[in-house]
């Protein structure tokens, strides 16, 4: 239980998680953040790093469906969990409706905030809840974007939510 180690010896741990639908089992260093593991070891470089202290949202991933900042989340904590990064959305190169909405609405400029914002929007859509305009803005407020002034981002998110709503009406579960 207590993994005490002599000074200088790096404590290692086996980490099992599902990343983008694939089971992953790797040995990690307990000092690593989830961001470190996703980017440096698993090469999911779509996870961006803008601050490493939870302030920008660029490193957002979905953890069991919930957006979290992977830069301030210990990799060890992801054990047994499901992680989705931006690379895990499109299937066989086909964009999801959320991704399509971002491309079509011109919500992408430099693209550095994009993976995180798209994932937060995906979480909103997947929640099946309805969001008012102000709630959409609030749900995206953990993502700093310096390029767009947020307008087209909010437009894209609302469009994706609207389309999901229509789709749900057409195919009630």
């Amino acid at each position: 239980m207590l993994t005490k180690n002599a000074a200088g010896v790096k404590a290692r741990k086996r980490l099992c998680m599902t990343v983008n639908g694939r089971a992953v089992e790797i040995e990690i260093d307990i000092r690593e953040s989830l961001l470190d593991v996703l980017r440096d070891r698993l090469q999911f470089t779509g996870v961006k790093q803008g601050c490493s202290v939870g302030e920008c949202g660029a490193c957002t991933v979905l953890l069991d469906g919930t957006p979290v900042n992977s830069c301030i989340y210990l990799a060890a904590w992801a054990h047994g969990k499901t992680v989705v990064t931006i690379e895990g959305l499109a299937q066989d190169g086909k964009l999801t409706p959320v991704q399509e909405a971002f491309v079509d609405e011109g919500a992408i400029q430099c693209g550095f905030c994009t993976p995180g914002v798209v994932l937060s929007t995906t979480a909103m859509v997947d929640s099946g809840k309805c969001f008012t305009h102000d709630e959409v803005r609030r749900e995206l407020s953990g993502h700093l974007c310096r390029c767009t002034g947020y307008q087209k981002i909010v437009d894209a998110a609302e469009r994706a939510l609207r389309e999901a709503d229509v789709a749900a009406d057409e195919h009630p579960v």
Partner: protein
Amino acid sequence: MIGASSIRKEGRAKVLGTAIYTDDKFMPGALHGLTVRSEVPRGILRAIHFGEGIPWEEFTLVTAADIPGTNLVASVVDDQPFLIGIGEEITHSQQAVLLLAHADRHLAEKARRAVRLEIEELPAVLDIQSSLDLQPLIYGTNNLLKEIRIAKGDPDPIWAQAAHVIEGEYRTGAQEQMYIEPNAMLSVVEPKDGLLQVTVWGSLQCPYYVHGALKQLFGLPEKQVRVVAMEMGGAFGGKEDYPSVNGGHAALLAWKSGKPVRLIYDREEDLACTTKRHPSRTRLRTAFDADGNLLALEADFILDGGAYATLSPVVLSRGAVHAAGVYRCPHVRIHARAVATNTPPPGAFRGFGAPQSLFAMERHMDRCARQLSLDAVELRKKNFLRMGDTMATGQVIREDLDLAGLMDRALAAIGYRDKRAAFALTNPEDGPIKRGVGFSVFMHGCGFTGNGESHVASVAGVEGLADGTVAVLAASTEMGQGKNTVFAQIVAEALQLPVELVDTAPVDTDRVPNSGPTVASRSTMMVGRILEDAAIGFKQALVQQGFLAEPYTPASFQAAVAKAVAALGSLRCYGQYHRPPGLQWNDVTYQGDAYPTYSWACYAAEVAVDLDTFEVKVADFVAVQEVGRVVNPTLAAGQIEGGVAQGIGWGLWEEVAMQRGRMINNQMTNYIIPTSVDLPRIQVIFLENAHAGGPGGAKGIGELPMDGPAPAVVNALENALGALRLDEVPMTPDRLLERCEEVSHG
């Protein structure tokens, strides 16, 4: 193609997460580089001490003594060293002294903290006034990095005769670009065919700036240096001049270690040490006749240029040329100075000096209207520049300019008259919320100031590829503004092809020619124009060499290109900048055509001020602009919206707090840029007026939206609150409280 909202070329890669930014590039065996900086604003470096407990022998260390070529960053003036050596003078708190690299990032960080610098401190200059007072002298003979005088007529006799003379002083603070991707560089330096080959991949706006800096740093010829621009997570000018510094640092470490090196700044370092918008102080003096006609204008425009000249001379010149605003005035004198201080050098930031001087002028016009008891709209209408008028530099307006129409459009869109009337009734009522509307009218010169374009003599080209598609060859970089898409549209239009058949080649100095830096709102208009020529030349070459017959279909064109490439090996065609006939500029007298043309705009803002908390909320915003022909409406609107957001941020929240010459709020939670819940919907309106100079009639657009929001918001504040000393941005709640108390305490 031109005028259509074509889908962003690299949008798909960005939304899939497959776009490769600098830090994403896989580089096995790379070391992590770090920079050790002085923490004092001024002093003499006496020694570098390496602390205990660090395996220093495992580290690559670079000091000034190691530099193989010239220890000066190639820029407008070569005065900034890459590294400060022992016995040399430290001139600001973020000066690089030592570079270190190790395979273990964690250990490298520990090592950085273990280095102690022995510095003999010297008295420092930390603000504009001390610099002007030579307290003490820190740069050259007068602490001036650059001085410019622009004169038209003679204002001196006017002051005594004029019905009204109105003076004002205005200040603007530093502003951080806050691109979301911090500065990042990778480098490999290795021998190739017996020659040293320096390669840098990075987040950079201007590959040929970095290229020039590396040549000088290593003393190498052109061929032995290669710079590649990776996907860029925002720049806004912040990756214009600075990459020459950190690109050089990365290359030095790679050279010394013989291994690939990553030099990726963390956010705190990026905020503390990289360039910002220049703080400014502007004193204006204007004379009006009894009817409100502007008779004379004098501007004393000062920028805090920090410790080295860097780009201050050119930022100053743009600021100076814009200082007289959009008004006709027979007698103008502009005195502009960039002063040296012991602070990290500011640099390029969207707007490049113009937002500073335009803030002063547009605030001043509202204050003048109040003092003249004239409506701010009427006062401007009387004095707007029109076709045939001359500007301060003597430039004659040759286009059919209708600023009154532009302004009316913006005012109508925001409901200016109705709102003013309504607020005049509601504001005197009880309750803490006061509302106001205000606006600003301004221009932005397209392309470089003066002879800049002629000096660069940009080259750009198009190349046929084996599959018959066409690649754009230009050193302009994609930083989110949409140049990949816009260039493809311009070339596709010139060749009458669908935009899918045109793409841009990777921006690599081994492959693309020097089409100049990606700055100054020049890419679409200047480089786009050259590309238009190159494309037409390319088509003619195909026809002349018998590969293509006109008329053609996209399919036959593609087949022709494929055939030509197969037959010739490669097919490229280049165009080069030619100064349009009739444009004249004198660098010494600052007389002539400062810019080939200008974009024009009127921005209007509605604000709600809470007099309990002194918070200001922007409730509505309208941006009307004339930017020639709009190449891609969606991308263009995105540029305006983002620029307006930055402008509002600068006007209200974004404050760089300095202590002993060092930024102390260098975190994203402490330097306040707007989030999605802090901004209103921004209404963007384009008035088209095809300008002959740019491709398909396009002008520049990138920087314009930074100029107008701050004065529009502060003018709206004055409408809400009455005459206060609203002379500074950011107008934070604290400052606003202070201004209100000045009035209530007499």
